[in-house]
Structure formats: C-alpha cells, structure tokens
C-alpha cells in the first residue's frame, strides 16, 4: 500500500478497502519510525492530520470525493497553512504560526480534500541544493543516509522516496524540485511560471519561484498539477487560463515526437555515469518511435551567473520583511533600532541566506545596478530566446537534470560555487519561465539514482507529462525504492 500510485490509493479509498484515517495513520506511523534518522519532517500535528482524514472519509462516504480526496501529502514548509507553524527552514520563523492559508494549501486541502501529514524540511528560504542550510538540520537521502537528498525541496524528496508520504509539494526557483527529484529517484515537475499561484508561498525570488508536485510517477504528477494549478486573483503574476486536465494526454503514443538535445548539455561538466544513463534513455525514446534532433542553447553557460544576480537581488528585497518588528525572531538584546535590525538578522538568518542578501544588495546598489541587474535581465531574455529558437526544431528538450548523483553531506557545503553548479542544467528553465521535469533514468555504480530532465514549451505540461509517462510505461526505474526502510 505504501508504494501504491495515487490512482491506486484513490481506488482503495473509493472501494472502502481502507479509510483515509487508516491510510493517514499508516504514514504517521512510518514517519514516527523513520523520520528521526531522515529528518524530512519538521512539523507534525497528528490531530490536524486525522481531523482532515475524517473529513475526507465523510466526503468519500457522501460520494463527493475527487481523485485526490483522502490521500495524504507532505507539504514543503514554504507554504503558509493556517494554524500551522511555517518556518521556511529558518530560525527566523521557528515559531511563526501562519494566520492564513496559501492558495496551494487551499486547493489541496480544502478543494481536493487531501490530508496534510506535516511540513517538510527544506534549505533555509529555499536557498540551497543539498538541504544542508536548514535551521532544522540536514535531511538524509533515503538511498544513502550519508548523502544529501538535494535541495531546496530535500525534505519533500526524502519523504516521498522513503514512502513517508505518497506525494509532496515542492517549489523550484533554480532546480529545487527537479534536482532533489533526480537525487532521490522521484518524478518532479516545475510548471510554466504563473500556472500555480504563489500566494502564501514564502518568496525567495518572485520572478522565478514556482510550486509543483514531487511524486513517484508522471501520472501522479499530472493528477497533482490538475489540483494545484489555476488562476488566482491574489497573485498578479498568475495566468488567466482555463482549468486543464493535465492527465488528458497520458497514453498517447510517442511516435514522431521530436526530442531536442541541446549540445551544451552533452559536453563537459557532466558525470560519465549520468551521461551514460541519459544516453540510454534517449535510446529508449528512439525505440518508442521518437526522433532526436540536435539543438543549441548558445547562452546557457550564462544562466548560472545571471541567476546568481537576479535571484539574490529579488531575495534581498523579499527577505527585508524579516526585521524582528511584527513576527518571527527578534534578538533578545539590542541597544537601538539599527542594532535590533542587525542583531535580529545576523542571528536569525543562516550563512547562505546572508550571503545571498549581501550579493543581492550589492547588485542593486547605486552604480552597480546597470552592470549587474540590468545586464542579467538582458541575458535572461537571450536565454529565453534560445529556447524559443530551439522549440522551432523540437517538441521537448531532453538532458541531464544534475551533473552528478547525490553527493556526501559536507562535500560541497564549503564551496558555494561548486554547490551552485549542481543546478547548471535546471536554472535556464526558471529564467525562461518554461515547464521542466525530472524523472528517474537509472542508477550509478553506487546504487544512487540518476535523473533526466525534460523541458517543454510554455503551457505544454500535458504533453511533457505524457512524454515522461511513455518512458515510465516502458521502464521501471521510477518504481525502485531504497532498501532498509520497511
């Protein structure tokens, strides 16, 4: 049961072979047993979860269940949920109880009837690629507990990989859904910017942040996205589009599909075993009838530098509200207002967050704005144009998600640039605002999962999900689970 798909769980609930309360208890028990070592969950509230499960059971009994009603879920601790502690992985918000719900929470809990099992760990304010920057300690990769699960949605990835939850929410600013999905053998989707509301999702970099599902299959991701997506008048960057059934293309044959392989993603910088697995996946697609064409993203080498100007710039401003005045951490002792600000922020934020606030403040400063921020915005347009050109030649773009498999805890923590390069293939997608996925495509010699990335054109999630689904119908990488967690 704990490895069942969302569809199978919904069927079991509908058939009353298990109740939502029973299912919720099953997962809460696993969390109680396995979370102390994995550190995926930071906040649990059994009463709240079970109350939601009872409400879901009532809805099922009344014949008013949707496709996700009663199914448990882990929520990344970046989404504000009324009455729940919402920390964003930071000491700054260690005791912050949200008085309101994020739109994603409203959609998943109230509208879809899902049961939140708890809030899962993440890099502090979503800044990190290894989940080592969390104030609540690092998350362990269920495939090898000496290794990182990726980040920033590392808690989400570890929770689903270890079957502490059937599915989880994640957010992706530069790869924070796709990279941990790759490192934990999951399927994760970052939708087109504006498809999922950002209201109530604590902002890191507003023009790049996008929420999406982290699950065991493309099919599960499609169900989840259908529930999460939709126009929200509370988010001015949300797109006014009709609701979509993202499962609608699943099962369509891949014959004739044109897969673009950006030559820049197949050069130096990618680990040999990752590359071999991605090449094997390309071979599988060709067997399924897809055509392969070479495309070029000539400005992709500029994506990491441009990202590390734009994202910190927005973050430096977004995080100004954490000032110790109205909520959150305040330094216990201070001499005056400025001292209160500096001590509160010095003590409340971790090193990586402070580094990015400093970078962002610098690039927006008088005299540097044109050289850094405006220049980075120009590069951003060039990168987006590269994709527009590439999609004239192909339907989807394929490449590695991350240049390496899960690395050891502490291995890259001392070298921010090495850490930033683990998002080298994912960042351009955020800069362009395109949908991107990661899905399992093999294992390295140490038994660590390898992910490949599929990038779609704007609003092409339904096709993208089918391309991933077609591969998952022909392979079983995504069905493999880590040993020793039963």
């Amino acid at each position: 049961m704990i490895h069942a798909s969302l569809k199978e769980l919904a069927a079991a609930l509908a058939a009353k072979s298990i109740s939502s309360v029973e299912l919720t208890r099953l997962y809460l028990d696993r969390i109680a047993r396995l979370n102390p070592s994995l550190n995926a969950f930071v906040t649990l509230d059994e009463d709240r979860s079970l109350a939601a499960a009872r409400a879901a059971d009532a809805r099922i009994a009344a014949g008013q269940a949707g496709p996700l009603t009663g199914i448990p879920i882990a929520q990344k601790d970046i989404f504000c949920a009324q009455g729940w502690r919402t920390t964003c992985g930071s000491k700054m918000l260690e005791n912050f109880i949200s008085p309101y719900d994020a739109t994603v929470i409203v959609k998943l809990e109230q509208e879809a009837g899902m049961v939140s099992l708890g809030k899962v760990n993440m890099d502090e304010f979503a800044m990190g690629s290894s989940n080592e920057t969390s104030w609540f300690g690092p998350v362990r990769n269920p495939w090898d507990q000496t290794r990182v699960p990726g980040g920033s949605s590392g808690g989400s990835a570890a929770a689903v990989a270890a079957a502490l939850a059937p599915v989880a929410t994640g957010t992706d600013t530069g790869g924070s859904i796709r990279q941990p999905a790759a490192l934990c053998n999951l399927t994760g989707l970052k939708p087109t910017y504006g498809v999922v509301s950002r209201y109530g999702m604590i902002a890191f970099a507003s023009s790049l942040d996008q929420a999406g599902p982290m699950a065991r299959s493309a099919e599960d991701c499609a169900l989840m996205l259908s529930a999460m997506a939709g126009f929200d008048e509370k988010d001015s960057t949300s797109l006014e589009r009709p609701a979509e059934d993202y499962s609608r293309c699943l099962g369509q044959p891949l014959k004739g599909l044109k897969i673009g392989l950006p030559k820049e993603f197949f050069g130096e910088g990618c680990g040999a075993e990752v590359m071999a697995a991605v090449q094997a996946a390309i071979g599988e697609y060709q067997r399924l009838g897809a055509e392969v064409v070479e495309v070029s993203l000539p400005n992709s080498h500029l994506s990491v530098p441009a990202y590390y100007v734009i994202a910190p710039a927005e973050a430096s401003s977004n995080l100004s509200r954490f000032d110790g005045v109205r909520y959150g951490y305040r330094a216990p002792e201070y001499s005056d207002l400025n001292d209160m600000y500096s001590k509160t922020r010095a003590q409340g934020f971790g090193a990586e967050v402070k580094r990015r606030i400093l970078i962002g403040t610098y690039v927006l400063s008088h005299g540097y704005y044109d050289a850094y921020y405006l220049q980075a915005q120009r590069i951003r347009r060039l990168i987006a144009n590269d994709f527009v050109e590439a999609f004239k030649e192909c339907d989807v773009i394929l490449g590695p998600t991350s240049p390496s498999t899960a690395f050891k805890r502490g291995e890259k923590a001392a070298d921010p640039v090495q850490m930033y390069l683990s998002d080298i293939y994912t960042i351009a997608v955020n800069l362009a605002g395109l949908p991107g996925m990661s899905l399992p495509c093999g294992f390295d010699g140490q038994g660590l999962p390898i992910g490949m990335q599929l990038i779609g054109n704007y609003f092409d999630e339904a096709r993208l999900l089918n391309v991933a689904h077609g591969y998952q119908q022909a392979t079983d990488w995504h069905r493999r689970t880590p040993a020793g967690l039963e």
Partner: protein
Amino acid sequence: MSQWEVVIGIETHAQLATVSKIFSGASTAFGAAPNTQAAPVDLALPGVLPVLNKGAVECAIRFGLAVDAQVARKSVFARKNYFYPDLPKGYQISQFELPVVQGGHVTIVVGQGEKSYEKRVNLTRAHLEEDAGKSLHEDFHGKTGIDLNRAGTPLLEIVTEPDMRSADEAVAYAKALHALVRWIGICDGNMQEGSFRCDANVSVHKPGTPFGTRREIKNLNSFRFLKEAIEYEVRWQIETLEDGGSIQQATVLFDPATGETRAMRSKEDAHDYRYFPDPDLLPLVIGEDWVERTRAALPELPEAKKQRFMADYGLSAYDATGLTASLETADYYEACVAAAGQASAKPCANWVMVDLAARLNKEGLELGQSPVSAVQLGGLVARIADNTISNAIAKKVFEALWAGEGSTADEIIEKQGLKQITDSGAIEKLVDEVLAANAANVAEFKAGKEKAFNALVGQVMKAAKGKANPQQVNDLLRAKLAG
C-alpha cells in the same frame, strides 16, 4: 548687487479617495483603532502578494487628464528598499523609471486685484505608490508603537518642475492643486488628516547663473506652514550665502512652533533605495479605451469652466477665477444664477464672492455648511433685479435667510413688509412732505450745496423706512427742486 532669485519645486502626496488600499482589500477609512485595518498584505506576512487596486489607477488617469499630461500606456511599479518599523515589507511599492502620469501643467493665479498674474506650473510626473504606517512614540513608556492602518493607503505623488519663484507662487500652486484633486474627486483634501501633504524643494541663485543647491522641506500639511517654511528657508539660505557660506543638499523639517527649518539628514546619509521593478506586479498597461472612458466621465475642468463663465456670464477673469476656485463654489454660483436669471450673473458673482464669503468667513464655515442655499440666494438677487427690494434691504433679507426666518426671500419680504415702494404717487407724497419739512436743506441746495441733496434723499428714505426705490426718489427730488 543683483537680487537673489528663489527657485521652488513641490512634491505633493495626495491620498486617493479609494474605499480600499492600493494593494489589499483593507479599508482606508481614517481614525479606526490601531491595526484593525491591516490585512495580511499590509502586515507583510510571509508569502503575501500585492494586487493593484483598479480604483487607484482610475484616480491617476483622472489626474493625468485634468492636468493635460501624458497618461502612460505602460508604467512600472518598483520597490524602494529601506528599513523602518512602520514600513512592513522593508520596501515601499512606488513607481520610479516609468510613472503613470508624465508631464502636464497647472495654471495658477498669484495675488489679488490689479497686481494678480497668471502663471503655468509644469509638472514633471505623478506616480502611484503606497503610504507607510505610523510610528507612535508617545504612550508606550520608552517603546515605539506601530499602527499599520495607514500602510498601503494609495497615494499619488505629484512632482512639479522647479517653476515657482516665491512662497506666494508655491502657495498659489498648492491651493490650485488642492482644489483640482478635490474637483476631480480623487482626494478629499483633508490636510489635518494628512490626505494632502507637500514637500518643498527650495534653492536660491542669482539670475543668469545655474540653480543653487536645494534643500527639501518635508511634510508641510497646511498652506500657512508652506508659506512660512519657504520664507524662513529662503531668508536662511540668502543669509548663509551672503555670509560667505554654502548650502549643502539636505532634507529639513519645519517646526511650526519656532517658524524655523532644521536639517534632518544630509546628502551623505541619503539612502540608497536600490530601486528595481517589483517582480510581484506586472507592468501597468492602460488601454486607450480606459483613458477615453475616464475622459468622458470627468467633470468640466476649472480652466474650461472659468472660460465659460467669462463668455456666458460676462464675468471678469478675476471673478471667474474666484468662482472656479473649487467645484463647490462653481456649482453654488451656477445654481444661484439659475435661480436669479442669467441677467443677474454679475450681481450673483458679487453676492457669492463678497457678501456670502464674508459672512461664512465670519462664522468660520465652509461653503457646504452655508445656511443660505444657492437657490435662496438666487431668489434674493432676483428681487433686487426686478426692483422689488433695494440693495440695502437685500442685505436685511440675506440676514433673515441666514437666521432661518423664512425659507425664501419672497416669504421674508412679504412677512416683514420689505417690498420696495415703486408707486410714484406714494413716493411723490413722501418727497413733498420732506421738502415741506426741510426748508433749510432746500435753501442750501439751491445755494449750490450738493451735500444738502443727499440729506434730503436720506430723509425721504427714512420716511419710507428704506423701502422707496432709490432711483425714483432721486429723480423726483431733482425734478421738484429744479421746478
């Protein structure tokens, strides 16, 4: 030695008369208990996002059209970053590089009577932004209280070119702008509640030389303070320069108690606000159709109304300017003329601008609080025009209307028997009696003393209890004395 020339530019924050805030649904009503009108967005809770209030944009468009400016088809909201406890997000959402209103001008009339002159003050821009909350330093025993009710209140910041050359011009501009924003209904103009606040940028230089270094006087919330602050600042700057000193760019505050300005921060401590486009808000795009719909809904603007008053009612520029100082005054005047008749347009102007204004002023009332309505006043003026009463009696009737002794001038005239005597027979009888009883005056007049004639007129009017038609009395007396 040549004279110093004063150079003034003004930035005005006009609070827009929207029901809710610029980026949240919270109410903008003044005076509620602290922090009861602060939504999650105003409190800057983690994860909240701003949504632009269309009503605030509508106000900006109205303003842009009213000052003949360019309403930008695309403008951009930017973040102005700085830390202050009453600025919840740590940044203010404003507009920086691309404001919604660009250019425009306001025509002002400076001074009164013969010496008055008209001047055009050019605007640089007007942009939308949110207000901050309030820091309360009293009543908290050494701590500071924060009230975020005002946080997120929509403001239009209106910036002029450095076009004004005296405190009087600055005040005339501020008054004209104040009248205009109320006229087009975008701001209630309540200066005590902070709905209309001016900052004055002041510098002095010798004509023909570059502008001097300016100092900015912040937060002037009355026309009197604006005038006093600029006058003090100008004297201070001239004295400083003439004593061999130099002016440093600075922000200063005006202290109404001492009448002085004092530096708050110098250029060196100026913030680097790190403006950048707000990624939570899309560029503001205003279509031609929205502008045209707004234009069609605008009331007749002051300048157009003034020209029409001069053309239709034969008023002088001075009268027309006075009567279009506010929409209320103009509406009152037109209602008065409608009741009195077009032919009485000029006497109506006098009554509104002189008699009524003086009476209101005496009682400290606004026009909207006048006990005498425009229709009542028009009814009164109509009775002067048709010779039912004289001007002197009219003032009595006006007082009676003011005191509520009747609902119309006609009622009071009837009830109090104030109808003018125009029956020439009756007047002749009175004249004959007066002539008979005042032989000495008659003799003096015949001896060439014109003064004696006035005394005789006075006697007749007295006998008529003021009700005789003065022209008829004059004419009859002249005829009799000549005969």
